[in-house]
């Protein structure tokens, strides 16, 4: 049955968002290399626009796109092989059975895992890992990936090309690593996904507090990994963390799009179903063994999410969780957050002393949240002159317009 063009466009857009990774992952193995696979998948989406208009939208768009993309990849191979007068050695025997995509659902699940492990291979530069993941698993265009990281498109294109070239030249395998290596490799993958999410949660710069698209991509990736590796406690911990953090999204800005700190947020705007799901996942993680860093951060988020109000918050519990986190993941940012928790659990002066000690940490030298946290504690302690200086310092370091506007209003209050 023919379909209206608006309907087709919407279906293709939806299939792009939901199925891109699935289709690409299923095509890479047939195509033999990522570039060919990408081209074949792009062609498949393009032909969906015309074919679905005349023949109707298929019941399973992902399967249709996969079959089409794989056929296209085989065609491209044949043409290349003829041109080179060589046999297409890379082809999988299963190319013969392209018309039956339902048969290999298992395989395709594995394909997506293979693709994410390839993108996040430690032999690739960390920023290339993030770029490839966004490009290949989220289907973002190179221009979008460049925009996400505030880089010129040409720079990002060169970076992605270099990474793909290395995958080919060095034979980075398209494979889920074997058990002995899996643990550390999963950790690398999770770091990439977490970075995508946090970069979206609070944009490092720009007019908006969030890069909602990136936060959503990170959220989707975390969920995808959880579907693919359901029994992994770090994967489950990351999904819980993302859900429990994301649940507060609707309350982070007021009606004038000004920043609202958690202390003053309208907790009725928090997403209860997301909190419930996050807490349930956290429960699962704790059954699987000692919690890793993502589960501990999720547990901290859960304490906030389940507190009735700011004054009800169990800061002793949060401080205890930070102490545990410090044992496994003692980064400068974790130390900073622990110092803040200490301020609320024990006293502002004690928290401030810890923050002051972090002033010597070179990796926090340009981190606006350190002076912002100092300014807040100094204000609470009535040391307004010093607080003003600290707010000014935070303003110099912050590049996010929403955060700058908030810092400026705090500074103005102190001027009165």
């Amino acid at each position, binding site marked *: 049955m023919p379909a209206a063009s608006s309907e087709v466009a919407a279906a293709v857009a939806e299939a792009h968002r939901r199925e891109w990774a699935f289709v690409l992952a299923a095509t890479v193995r047939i195509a033999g290399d990522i570039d060919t696979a990408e081209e074949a998948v792009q062609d498949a989406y393009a032909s969906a626009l015309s074919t679905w208009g005349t023949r109707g939208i298929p019941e399973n768009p992902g399967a249709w796109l996969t079959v089409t993309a794989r056929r296209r990849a085989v065609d491209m191979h044949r043409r290349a092989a003829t041109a080179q007068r060589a046999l297409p050695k890379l082809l999988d025997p299963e190319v013969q059975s392209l018309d039956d995509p339902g048969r290999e659902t298992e395989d395709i699940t594995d394909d997506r895992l293979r693709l994410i492990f390839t993108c996040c*291979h430690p*032999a690739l530069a960390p920023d290339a890992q993030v770029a490839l993941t966004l490009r290949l698993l989220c289907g973002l265009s190179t221009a979008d990936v460049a925009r996400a990281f505030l880089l010129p498109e040409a720079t990002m294109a060169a970076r992605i090309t270099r990474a793909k070239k290395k995958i080919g*030249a*060095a*034979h*980075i*395998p398209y*494979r889920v*690593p074997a058990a002995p*290596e899996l643990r550390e490799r999963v950790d690398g993958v999770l770091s990439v996904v977490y970075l995508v999410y946090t970069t979206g949660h609070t944009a490092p710069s720009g007019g908006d507090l969030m890069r909602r698209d990136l936060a959503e991509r990170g959220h989707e990736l975390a969920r995808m990994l959880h579907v693919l590796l359901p029994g992994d406690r770090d994967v489950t911990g990351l999904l819980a963390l993302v859900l429990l953090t994301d649940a507060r999204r609707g309350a982070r800005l007021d009606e004038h799009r000004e920043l609202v700190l958690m202390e003053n947020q309208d907790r009725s705007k928090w997403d209860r179903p997301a909190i419930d799901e996050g807490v349930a996942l956290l429960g699962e993680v704790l059954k699987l063994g000692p919690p890793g860093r993502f589960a501990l951060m999720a547990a901290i988020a859960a304490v906030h999410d389940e507190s009735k109000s700011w004054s009800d918050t169990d800061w002793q519990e949060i401080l205890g969780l930070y102490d545990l986190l410090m044992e496994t993941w003692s980064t400068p940012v974790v130390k900073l957050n622990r110092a803040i928790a200490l301020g609320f659990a024990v006293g502002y002066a004690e928290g401030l002393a810890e923050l002051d000690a972090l002033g010597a940490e070179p990796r926090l030298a340009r981190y606006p949240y350190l002076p912002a946290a100092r300014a807040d504690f100094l204000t609470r302690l009535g040391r307004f002159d010093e607080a003003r200086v600290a707010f000014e310092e935070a303003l110099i370091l912050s590049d996010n317009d929403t955060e700058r506007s908030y810092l400026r209003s705090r500074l103005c209050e102190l001027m009165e």
Partner: protein
Amino acid sequence: MSKYLVLIFQDEVATKEAAGETVSADYQAFMQRRGRSLLGGAALEPAETATSIRRDGSGGFSVTDGPFAESKETLGGYFMIEAADLDEALEIAKEVPAGVGVEVRPVRVAS
């Protein structure tokens, strides 16, 4: 199977101390264990014995004493290995008992 060159980097001082020594027991054990993947290899004389040749850009050469790139860690030897993919190559390379570490480079295949 693909070929990789595993470049072994050493501290200059350590290299000098080890000069004159034959293949150490650690290397012998490694070569025995990974013999099937090793296509070749050699230990090199210290970097101070190196001579570098640079094209001067106008058809001539400049010949200088010393390694091509000056650094604290110098190339001390190499293995040519064969592996199914980079993961296997890295696994083998991790077993090389090199003082500082190694660099793994795929050997270019004509396409």
